[in-house]
């Protein structure tokens, strides 16, 4: 029995073979990662989450946002993704707060003509 399952799931999700299949599968629907197309098991869903996780990391490396050192160990990788997710969440909250729709609605209320 495999004890450290997550370690091996991560190892596979990081692999270029699965990353290529994952990336192609997004555009070409006849490329399947699994034998089943639905009704995924828990381990398959965990694997998909890690594929997406590493795909984001590889993209950030390709864009030059970070160096490959991020892949040196799981603590580096997880720390970077934790920081990135928190930053994105904060950015999203700020955008929502300054939403143009929100501003229009406020303006409408502020400049509403008084009832005659």
């Amino acid at each position, binding site marked *: 029995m495999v004890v450290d*399952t997550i370690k091996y799931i991560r190892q596979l999700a990081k692999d270029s073979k699965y990353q290529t299949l994952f990336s192609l599968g997004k555009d070409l629907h006849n490329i399947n990662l699994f034998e089943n197309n639905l009704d995924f098991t828990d381990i*398959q869903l965990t694997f998909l989450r890690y594929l997406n996780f590493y795909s984001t990391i590889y993209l950030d490396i390709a864009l030059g*946002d970070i160096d490959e050192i991020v892949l040196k160990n799981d603590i580096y990788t997880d720390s970077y993704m934790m*920081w990135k997710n928190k930053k994105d969440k904060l950015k999203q909250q700020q955008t929502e707060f300054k939403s143009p729709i929100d501003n229009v609605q406020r303006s409408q209320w502020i400049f509403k003509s008084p009832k005659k």
Partner: protein
Amino acid sequence: MAEEIKDLQKEQEINEVQKKINEVLNLGEIEDLIKSNEKIFEVNNITYRVRKPTFKQRQEAYKKRVEKFTELLQNDKYVLESDLKTSYLKRNIDIDAMTRSIQNKMNNRDSLMLKLGEMIKNKVAENELETVKNEVQALNEEIQRLSIQKTNLLEFCIENQVAIYTYSYLTFLLAEKKEGDNWVRVWNTWEEFENEKEGLINRFSYYVTMMSGWEEM
């Protein structure tokens, strides 16, 4: 003396090779589990299968879970987690304090990880990254040690016994073997399941856990 050192080196090399072989085998096993929502394997020329549980099977296991919980609750020999915590407290073992300590360490670990993440983004020198990484690792080890200690202390509570029973029941429901062209249940009764060899049950249980999740039920 030189002979002994030579033997020791040889033993280390053998262990290293064995470790690598295990890594490859484990990776292959996980890859095989990922490729499909069913697992087929052979033991002593018998072909076995385990598949992701259906809604009906989950419902059946859940019903058994409720029955088991009610049964154990009525038995004075078994105790709830909350009762067990009170008993431990009388012996100066504070489980709630242990939980708070784990949570504090997790918060500290997360703060360090956020700091490390930003350092990676800012391309800080590796030796500085390594210092923070070691602090995270030390906290992870402490969290793991405390979590294991807590799990061991609460092992015999009703909630834990019910969880073990539910997974065993799900294993009993999901295990199939091939007979001719048909797949049939491995065990027709719970008694048959309980009398089975531990090795086969453990293997099925592992696949069931991988397919249906750790904390879903």
